[in-house]
């Protein structure tokens, strides 16, 4: 086992060394230049919006540069080894062919990690420098860890099936949506703690109701209470503050929401109410977010390297790009596919089903084929929105460890499938050229 790991590390180390000799790291200079060039846009952007400009700029540049490096290096490495017959010298040594694939994958994954970490360090240093020279109007560099409730219930309410929200309650003193937080630590909050709420409003007699007022009560087991009312729209995210002193030694806090409008109801899901801790170190939060970009890059890397065991370099790179694009528009395709399903269901229920055409004028059979194919592709390709760090960064949210673990779980299956496939393809590869 130790010997195998030593050989694996030898291939990975050589991959890194070769990349550095090929001056791949000069791309980091280009990244630095790209970041500095964002200064050119400063005059046209308000001081308080510059932080977002740099963040978006840096994240997009990191993602693109990392993707390019990953795609091209992985796409060319094995085909070049085969083409130049360097592979002869490696697989004739006491190393199995699959290990060569794994070593290459490990080497490139490490290379991407070095890239992403360096880009992250450059970005945070740049942000701190810009902030230093921008004066007080420049927003603070913050990242708030979020806490979700351990328990969500709806006394007097109903459980919703196949709806956007999980539970709904109507007007009444006994009816409430209740989130219960446990294990809270007072020291994790500033004097004023923040809470974010999102709700759906409705009314039985008014199908167009999309706003309302809600009564918010934050209570602790010792009877301490903070009460306020909020007027808000459906799916709008609103924040309220309350004294963190409410969090006692037991670390338990309950948030109760009641409909104020007598004819209305409110609905929500467990994750729609979030408690913010005080900001953690921005650089640390940024590093956590970069882990998401690394996971995304490792997915693209795995398919590119796997396909390069039997396809030419350009075709492997093309496949990697295709995966990247499909993964990036996953959400849109999923939504579109749902709409088509709805159209098809309506047509099926129509009395003239056999003569019906979809609103686009396409025959239902073609549309069914298209939507089923899309679903198959979507099942095979992970949704890259899970790895889009900008979703967190632009809201000043810190990526939690559980979110990283969740993203890791989503990335694991496609990576594992590609790596297993790649090792099998290598195992049975005949170097007959």
């Amino acid at each position, binding site marked *: 086992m130790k*010997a195998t790991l*030593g*050989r694996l*590390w*030898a*291939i990975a*180390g*050589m991959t890194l*060394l*070769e990349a550095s*000799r*090929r001056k791949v790291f000069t791309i980091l200079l280009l990244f630095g230049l790209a970041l500095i060039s964002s200064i050119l846009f400063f005059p046209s952007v308000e001081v308080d919006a510059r932080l977002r400009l740099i963040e978006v700029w840096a994240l997009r540049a990191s993602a693109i540069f990392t993707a390019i490096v990953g795609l091209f290096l992985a796409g060319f490495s094995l085909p070049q080894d085969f083409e*130049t*017959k*360097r*592979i*002869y*010298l*490696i*697989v*004739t*040594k*006491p*190393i*199995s062919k699959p290990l060569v694939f794994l070593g290459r994958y490990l080497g490139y994954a490490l290379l991407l990690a070095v890239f992403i970490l360096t880009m992250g360090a450059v970005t945070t240093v740049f942000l701190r420098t810009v902030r230093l020279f921008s004066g007080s109007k420049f927003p603070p560099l913050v990242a708030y860890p979020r806490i979700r409730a351990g328990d969500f219930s709806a006394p007097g309410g109903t459980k919703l099936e196949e709806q956007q929200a999980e539970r709904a309650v109507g007007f009444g003193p006994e009816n409430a949506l209740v989130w219960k937080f446990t294990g809270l630590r007072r020291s994790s909050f500033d004097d004023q703690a923040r809470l974010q709420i999102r709700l759906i409003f409705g009314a039985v007699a008014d199908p167009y109701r999309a706003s309302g007022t809600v009564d918010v009560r934050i209570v602790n087991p010792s009877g301490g209470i903070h009460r306020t009312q909020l007027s808000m729209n459906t799916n709008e995210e609103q924040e309220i503050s309350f004294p963190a002193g409410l969090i006692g030694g037991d670390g338990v806090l309950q948030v109760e929401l009641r409909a104020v409008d007598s004819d209305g109801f409110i609905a929500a899901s467990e994750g729609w109410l979030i408690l913010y801790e005080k900001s953690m170190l921005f650089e640390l939060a940024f590093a956590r977010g970069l882990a998401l970009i690394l996971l995304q890059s490792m997915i693209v890397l795995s398919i590119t390297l796997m396909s390069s065991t039997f396809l030419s370099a350009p075709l492997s790179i093309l496949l990697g790009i295709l995966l990247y694009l499909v993964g990036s528009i996953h959400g849109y395709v999923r939504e579109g596919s749902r709409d088509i399903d709805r159209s098809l269901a309506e047509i099926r229920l129509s009395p003239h089903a056999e003569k019906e055409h979809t609103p686009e004028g396409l025959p239902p059979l073609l549309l069914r084929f298209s939507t089923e194919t899309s679903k198959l592709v979507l099942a095979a390709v992970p949704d890259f929105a899970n790895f889009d760090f900008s979703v967190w960064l632009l809201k000043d949210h810190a990526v939690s460890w559980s979110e990283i673990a969740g993203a890791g779980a989503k990335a694991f299956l496609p990576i594992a499938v590609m790596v297993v496939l790649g090792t099998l393809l290598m195992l049975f590869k*005949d*170097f*007959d050229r």
Partner: protein
Amino acid sequence: MDAVIQTEGLTKVYKDFWGRPKHKGLDRLSISIQRGEVFGLIGPNGSGKTTTFKLLLGLIFPTEGKATILGKPPTDVSAKAKVGFLPEESYLYRWLNADETLDFFGRLFNLDRETRRKRADELIHRFGLAHARHRQLREYSKGMTRRVGFCQALINDPEVVILDEPTSGLDPISSRQIKDLILELKRRGKTVLLSSHLLADVQDVCDTIAILHQGQTKVHGPVRDILVKRDSVSLTFKDLSDQTRKKMEEIAIAEGARLVHAENTLETLEDVFLRTVQESGDGLTYRKPPADEAPTK
């Protein structure tokens, strides 16, 4: 006998994209190479030499038959640990220098750092690469790259050495050094399998040869048995006067022998070249192995 490399009916049929047979690269090769033997595979281009090597090294899978190295299948990692391979061209990483290259290959053999460093040092000096050891291989000449190829093939002190065209691209001095090295390996009990287009080289170093043509074994046996002409004798004398030579010819003819050819012994061009270079004193040197190191062949 202790067979180190053995093949039985080894056959390789190359197929096209659709899996249809394209051509037979090797046809029922059956050979047995003993420990300490130097075995030469010769034949024209496309005769199956490289296919044989690829099969023996597990680079391709046989269509029929089987091959073993040290009693194990060619893909067996423990067998590969005792094999050194020099391909026809030195397919090395151009961005690495000689030290890094040897260190990398040493790590694939799982050699510890100290052994890697020691062996690399010895080989680099032996192959005259010390002055260029820190230069990237892309700056090397073809001959120098070839020598690095040799170093990597020997980094694990292998029991079996497989050399595809070992003297290709080398100048006569290096070529001679390689032949001496092969004989030295033999003396140390190593088994060497080589292929070459330079028949004189094969004749110089091999104990046994097989001549392949269109994938088939046409001739197979000890070099001496294959080359010897039983009905013809050549004698080499030193300081033989013309008069004595004439007398010897007359005696032989009187005894019924037929004189086919008589001339003064010629030196090989290689010997003349090596001596000339040696005498010119321009730094290029070739050291002939001392008598006690002389090959046993």
